[in-house]
């Protein structure tokens, strides 16, 4: 990793160029490095960050985006076949998730909402465990402490406050570490949410708290344009990134379908946070190409032409064009990516079938951390009740 010190004046130029208040309808500055045509552009601040991404890393970005898209298709199919109760597709948002996920370091802690399968992949969460929730065998599924990737939060925006509190904890830990000359790397937190959740009061409160305490947190908003059936225009009259200005920290709109720009901007923001310069809001401008969930029907509220227009900006296509044009990946690479994706899909399908149905006793055991007489009493009743059926069965045999 390069220096975390920005050149003099960068903060000012960021403030001036990236989050300039735009009236409704006015064009908004958006950081973009890799355009839909697959050509690499430049940015006065973020090109330096993009230069840190070597060809191998670019191939990893592509592989991960392709794998998570393939996973998304498989999970959707599993839902259609009745193997999952529900699925929340991410197609279209691969660059926003893979780019930002790869910008995080292992000591950073991540609070997702419920669509961040791509970030989960980057954080090495077992994707079969991720499906437990959607198969109805767990309300969580993985151990958040293993990968510093928190459980999905379904009540929108609640996790943005947890993220800020966690970041306040990191601040306190770092003060203690500084006093003891610890060499632990500095950490930050990413709070994921969407354009819909941006209207929730908890997002406002989390930004107020983050600003008040200068908490090391990056708010990563994926503006995918639709909160189920309600378009972003109903949630906000200004670009969401501009809201940061009102809280007193930088806000940046980035092309969410440009994995290079997303990575560069997120890396900058995380360094900003880790170095104690406070929170950052990133608005990743992207699009939910599919339905909100498998229970949703987008044909009822939006034009297929809109979806088609966004498919032209596809995050995978543009990186593929770039990799091919620059000679950074050959046909064998893309064949391998496809094979890896199919392998992942196979793995997920077979492990989903094998996901164990838990015993309700697990639920009794995890309501409280400490002994609780009512839990014990109700469990005892349940055991006795269940035993009654067993002895009936024995009698029948």
């Amino acid at each position: 990793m390069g220096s975390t010190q920005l050149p003099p004046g960068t903060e000012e130029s960021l403030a001036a160029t990236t989050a300039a208040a735009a009236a409704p309808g006015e064009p908004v500055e958006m950081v973009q490095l890799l355009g839909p045509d697959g050509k690499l552009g430049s940015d006065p601040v973020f090109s330096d960050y993009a230069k840190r991404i070597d060809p191998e890393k670019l191939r990893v970005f592509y592989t991960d985006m392709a794998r998570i898209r393939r996973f998304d298709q498989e999970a959707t199919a599993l839902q259609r076949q009745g193997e999952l109760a529900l699925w929340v597709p991410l197609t279209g948002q691969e660059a926003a998730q893979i780019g930002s996920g790869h910008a995080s370091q292992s000591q950073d802690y991540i609070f997702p909402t419920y669509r961040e399968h791509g970030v989960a992949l980057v954080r090495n969460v077992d994707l079969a465990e991720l499906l437990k929730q959607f198969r109805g065998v767990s309300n969580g599924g993985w151990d958040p402490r293993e990968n510093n990737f928190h459980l999905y939060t379904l009540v929108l925006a609640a996790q943005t406050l947890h993220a800020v509190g966690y970041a306040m904890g990191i601040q306190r830990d770092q003060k203690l570490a500084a006093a003891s000359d610890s060499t632990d790397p500095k950490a930050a937190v990413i709070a994921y949410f969407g354009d819909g959740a941006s209207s929730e009061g908890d997002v406002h409160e989390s930004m107020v708290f983050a600003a008040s305490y200068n908490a090391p947190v990056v708010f990563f908003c994926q503006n995918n344009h639709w909160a189920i059936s309600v378009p972003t225009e109903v949630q906000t009259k200004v670009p969401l990134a501009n809201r940061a200005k009102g809280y007193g920290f930088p806000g940046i709109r980035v092309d969410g379908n440009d994995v290079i720009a997303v990575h560069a901007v997120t890396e900058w923001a995380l360094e900003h946070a880790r170095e104690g310069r406070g929170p950052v809001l990133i608005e990743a401008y992207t699009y939910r190409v599919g339905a909100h969930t498998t229970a949703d029907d987008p044909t009822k509220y939006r034009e297929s032409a809109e979806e088609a227009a966004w498919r032209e900006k596809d995050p995978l296509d543009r990186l593929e064009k770039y990799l091919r044009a620059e000679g950074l990946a050959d046909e064998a690479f893309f064949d391998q990516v496809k094979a890896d994706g199919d392998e992942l899909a196979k793995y997920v399908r077979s492990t989903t079938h094998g996901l164990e149905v838990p015993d309700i006793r697990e639920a009794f055991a995890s309501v409280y951390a400490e002994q609780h007489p009512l839990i014990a009493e109700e469990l005892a009743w349940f055991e006795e009740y269940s035993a009654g059926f067993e002895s009936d069965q024995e009698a029948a045999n």
Partner: protein
Amino acid sequence: MATMTIAKAINEGLRASLTNNPKSLLMGEDIGHLGGVYRVTDGLIKEFGDERVVDTPLAESGIVGTAIGLALRGYSPVCEIQFDGFVYPAFNQITTQLAKIHSRSLGKLTVPVVIRIPYGGGIGSIEHHSESPEALFAHTAGLRIISPSNAHDAYWMIQKAIECQDPVIFFEPKRRYWLKGEVDVENAGLSEDPFKAHVVREGTDATIVAYGPLVPVALAAANAATEDGRSVEVIDLRSISPLDFDTVEASVKKTGRLIVAHEAPTFGGIGGEIAARISERAFLHLEAPVIRVGGFHMPYPVAKVEEDYLPDIDKILEALDRSLSY
């Protein structure tokens, strides 16, 4: 032994926790230099600094939500909600997150957050400053709910709440903040377990169960009943969730009659839960139906008429008469 008010006892209990547990911290509105609107945190910011006694922005969901995050990072936050009626903006964080994270993670994560709430009426205040919302939280699995009625319990129960690995809502009987009592800061004694009920007065003819602000009222009613030759047992519940039905059951098996008193409305309240459980556990020992004394099914009334709303000695004696003459 030291004599102190309940407010001072909580203050001393918080001081002891802040001293003993470097990961504990207090957060809330005006709890720093002001010492809280009831001065419960008075002087603590001077002693422990503003990283451990944190004045927060005016946002209850923010207070509880960030406390959850701090707990996930290994801290033991103690939140102050300024008044009972202001806890509702945090209701989502408390019920959908705080109460469920341990369960959601199948026990892998703990969120040892304490939420202090001054509650109850009788102080002549304006709307939202006199409510008793404990039943709303007791209905939510994953939370523990306790309420002290005296200074010794207040000193020890707040410390036990902070030690507990589960989230605890600590309801403080605000109209008793200035009630003095003896506190043994060396020995917790019976206060060791904050989730057990205490028989605070023994009797043989009937049992009154109360908690928090109504314990002194129940005791006064029991004393008044001696004039009619009645021997009344009084139980201080102390914990609302879990609820110590064993202690109540044992008492009812002895007295045969039960009155439950709380300031919260009777409908859907804790009294109904106690009545149902005791009916199941001690039906044949009951000489009369369980009688509840509580608030009416109305928003907490204006201060000038709150005396008509609140359970008092006479209302409890009237219930006692009904039970004894059944």
